[in-house]
């Protein structure tokens, strides 16, 4: 079950992963983007860590603060996308604390915000199978890794990579990889799932 404590632990771990893999994420964003995804996410997650350090009173406030940090600090497409995800979780958390339900709301928010869908070579290609697995009680590292890997052959339909058309195939999507870290750290956090 989600609590302020384990969610804080989860997001701090996510921030640590982003920091650690910052240059890898930017490298992934170089051939099919503008090479800033690592920097964008690191800036955003540093702000999230600062927000979490103030110890939000409840889950709704925690998700809201996370969303606001991402929206205001990221600067790239991933800002409004991750930001919307956490904003939807904040809304949903007022009536619900089921992780599957919260993540489903987040995914719907991402889809609405960016207009992308499964197969467009975006972070949605990680979120969609992971959310389904969480709802079915079957999230494993393999589910996450396969989802991330699935973006490699895809041709991008949204985001900067889509300007490359066919040439976007053969590269992992950077947002998919960062979302992979989000769910890997979720899986590793005691007591949430």
């Amino acid at each position: 079950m989600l609590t302020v404590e384990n969610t804080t632990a989860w997001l701090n771990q996510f921030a640590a992963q982003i920091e650690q893999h910052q240059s890898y994420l930017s490298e992934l964003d170089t051939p099919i983007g503008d090479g800033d995804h690592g920097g964008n996410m690191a800036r955003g997650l540093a702000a999230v860590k600062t927000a979490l350090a103030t110890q939000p009173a409840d889950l709704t406030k925690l998700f809201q603060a996370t969303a606001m940090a991402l929206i205001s600090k990221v600067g790239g497409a991933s800002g409004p996308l991750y930001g919307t995800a956490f904003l939807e979780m904040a809304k949903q958390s007022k009536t619900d604390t089921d992780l599957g339900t919260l993540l489903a709301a987040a995914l719907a928010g991402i889809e609405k915000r960016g207009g992308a869908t499964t197969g467009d070579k975006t972070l949605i290609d990680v979120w969609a199978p992971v959310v389904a697995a969480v709802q079915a009680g079957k999230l494993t590292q393999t589910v996450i890794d396969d989802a991330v890997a699935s973006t490699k052959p895809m041709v991008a339909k949204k985001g900067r990579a889509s300007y490359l058309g066919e040439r976007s195939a053969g590269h992992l999507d950077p947002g998919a990889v960062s979302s992979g870290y989000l769910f890997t750290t979720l899986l590793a956090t005691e007591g949430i799932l």
Partner: protein
Amino acid sequence: MSLGIVVVSHVPEIAAGVQRLLAQVAKDVSITIAGGTDDDQVGTSMAKITEAFDANTADELLAFYDLGSAKMNLEMAIEMSTKPVHLYDTALVESAYTAASLLQADVPLADVEAQLAPLKIK
């Protein structure tokens, strides 16, 4: 109901330059801009967009942007805005220029939108 223009670009120079281009032909139209991230890097900022909405003296806005992620920040800002904002998936420079020319001539919104329609490319 006065109409204004908001230009959102990933690059501060592009936003400032478009404003300069438009100001020449639309002296009486309020044109405000949001270019780059909060620290003027390449990117967009919802806070800057919201400021551009607020700074615009018109009470209904036409918004133009360059790349897709600017659109996402624009839409978030629109959801929080009290002013009505119309968002166009049209060629940034060319459509903002068209709208500015027409608004200066007091052309109503429906007619402006008709002239913007062929410039839709996103």
